[in-house]
């Protein structure tokens, strides 16, 4: 067990995340994992780590680490100022460090989540095959909680392969304006024409109340369909639910497994990583597409991704 770094400042919320615990929703266990899986994967690829190696996910920046061993790390995700002992760093570059070196992340300027990948990955408590931290159930990571000052980062022992020169076109494009493509959700037909127009003809504002479970969106409210109360049924990351208050709720990686609110739409796979970078106050537009078009987009996207991230799958 090698301690590779020590947390000096944790920022607002820093957790250990990998690709999540897929296939466990029937047990009530959410996916968790990096909210922006592309940024996680590319940060890892820059070091030659497997794309789904556990890394640190730091919300809005503010993390300060002191390395205690010689290693390499790479940054990805949200646009931020970052420095190693006051030398500015760029994203997706492998950086060699020795004991005593300090990594300091400034505030994220655009985007919500930064990723810090470390060569060989990061060790954490495993639950159902993943070390992703799920705060509500205290699973994974460091005792299932967010990092705090004084915590130790334990190096993982994953096989390191070829490092990858991370192409710009694969990166999650950071913005304060997010255009997200959707498919109709199971209750889409139950909403009135007016309610559907309302979802697709305005820009919503991401609420302050937003965490890894989901983002509440404010705007002109969406009238819920005139249905008897729904029986709880499956929801996923990327599902857009419409609660009775009319403010749509976009679910993210920690999404609960069952929900009782009408599901008006579902994000296409390729746009889910974008949703993980929406920060409070950002503007969000939803666009309608078709299953066939979504399939084409995903296939084309995967063709580009495959060369850089072999084995990558959308969560």
């Amino acid at each position, binding site marked *: 067990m090698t301690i590779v770094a020590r947390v000096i400042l944790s920022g607002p919320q820093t957790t250990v995340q990998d690709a999540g615990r897929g296939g466990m929703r029937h047990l*009530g266990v*959410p996916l968790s994992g990096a909210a922006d899986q592309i940024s996680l994967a590319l940060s890892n690829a820059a070091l030659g780590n497997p794309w789904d190696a556990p890394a640190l996910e730091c919300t809005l920046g503010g993390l300060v680490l002191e390395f205690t061993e010689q290693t390499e790390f790479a940054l990805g995700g949200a646009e931020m100022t970052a420095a190693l002992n006051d030398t500015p760093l760029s994203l997706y570059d492998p950086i060699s460090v020795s004991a005593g070196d300090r990594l300091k992340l400034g505030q994220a300027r655009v985007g919500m989540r930064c990723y810090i990948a470390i060569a060989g990955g990061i060790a954490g408590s495993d639950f159902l095959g993943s070390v992703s931290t799920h705060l509500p159930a205290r699973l994974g990571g460091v005792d*299932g909680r967010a990092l705090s000052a004084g915590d130790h980062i334990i190096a993982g022992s994953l096989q390191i392969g070829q490092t990858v020169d991370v192409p710009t076109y694969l990166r999650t494009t950071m913005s304060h304006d997010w255009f997200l493509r959707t*498919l109709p959700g199971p209750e889409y037909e139950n909403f009135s024409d007016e309610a559907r127009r309302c979802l697709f003809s305005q820009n919503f504002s991401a609420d302050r109340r937003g965490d890894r479970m989901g983002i509440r969106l404010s705007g002109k409210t969406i009238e819920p369909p005139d249905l008897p109360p729904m029986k*709880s*049924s499956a929801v996923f990351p990327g599902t857009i639910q419409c609660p009775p208050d009319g403010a749509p709720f976009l679910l993210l990686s920690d999404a609960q*497994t*069952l929900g009782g609110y009408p599901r008006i739409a579902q994000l296409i*796979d390729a746009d889910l990583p974008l949703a993980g970078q929406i920060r409070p106050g950002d503007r969000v537009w939803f666009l309608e597409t078709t*299953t066939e078009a979504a399939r084409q987009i995903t296939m084309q996207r995967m063709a580009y991704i495959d060369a850089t991230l072999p084995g990558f799958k959308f969560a």
Partner: protein
Amino acid sequence: MSNTNDFEFMRFGERGWLATCMRDFDDVTSGLFVNAIADAVRPKNGITDAIAGIDSIAIRFDNTQLDANDALKLLKDATKKTAAPNDTQPPDKTIEIPVLYGGDAGPDLESVCAQTKLTTDQLINKHASPPYRVITVGFAPGFAYMGPLDKALQIPRLATPRARVAAGSVAIAGGFTGVYALPSPGGWNIIGRTPVPLFDAARPSPFLFKPGTAVQFRPIDETEFQELSKQTP
């Protein structure tokens, strides 16, 4: 054997299908039926998730391995091959859940009594007497939807959900009773609390409840609650 006409099938995202049961089953029968279907389809090649709700099954498939139509066929086959449970025979084993009703443990007990026009004793008796079955699990790790709930106890969810419900909270809403395994936000009416840990990631079997588990609530007093809490670290 059931008939595919008993289900409505819908596409749910790029990699998903949803089957909703259109038969007029009670929630226990319906929940056990959809769980049996989900169990039948989950192990199939290319199926990555099969999640049972109360009256629905959602599947997700790996679209690099499986065509959407082939995935739908697997789901339809599972609905055809699974018999609707016509006799929900309880299993041999019943899990007893001790519950401290009312007070700080059950902050909504008084309001539930007012809405149902029952005295505290009547309410506790009606809630703790009948055996329940776990209809489905989900929402959060360890949360179980149980039923059937006595008609006299069926009231809507809270108008405004609580930001935080304590772990072990025993609650009712609509035709269900349930126990919050973890501290979480929640909109159900909380009538009591159990000291028994329902979910513990460190246990060899982390989950206490599975769909179909038989459950009996047992009213306890504050002293017993404290004693039982000490036994469970």
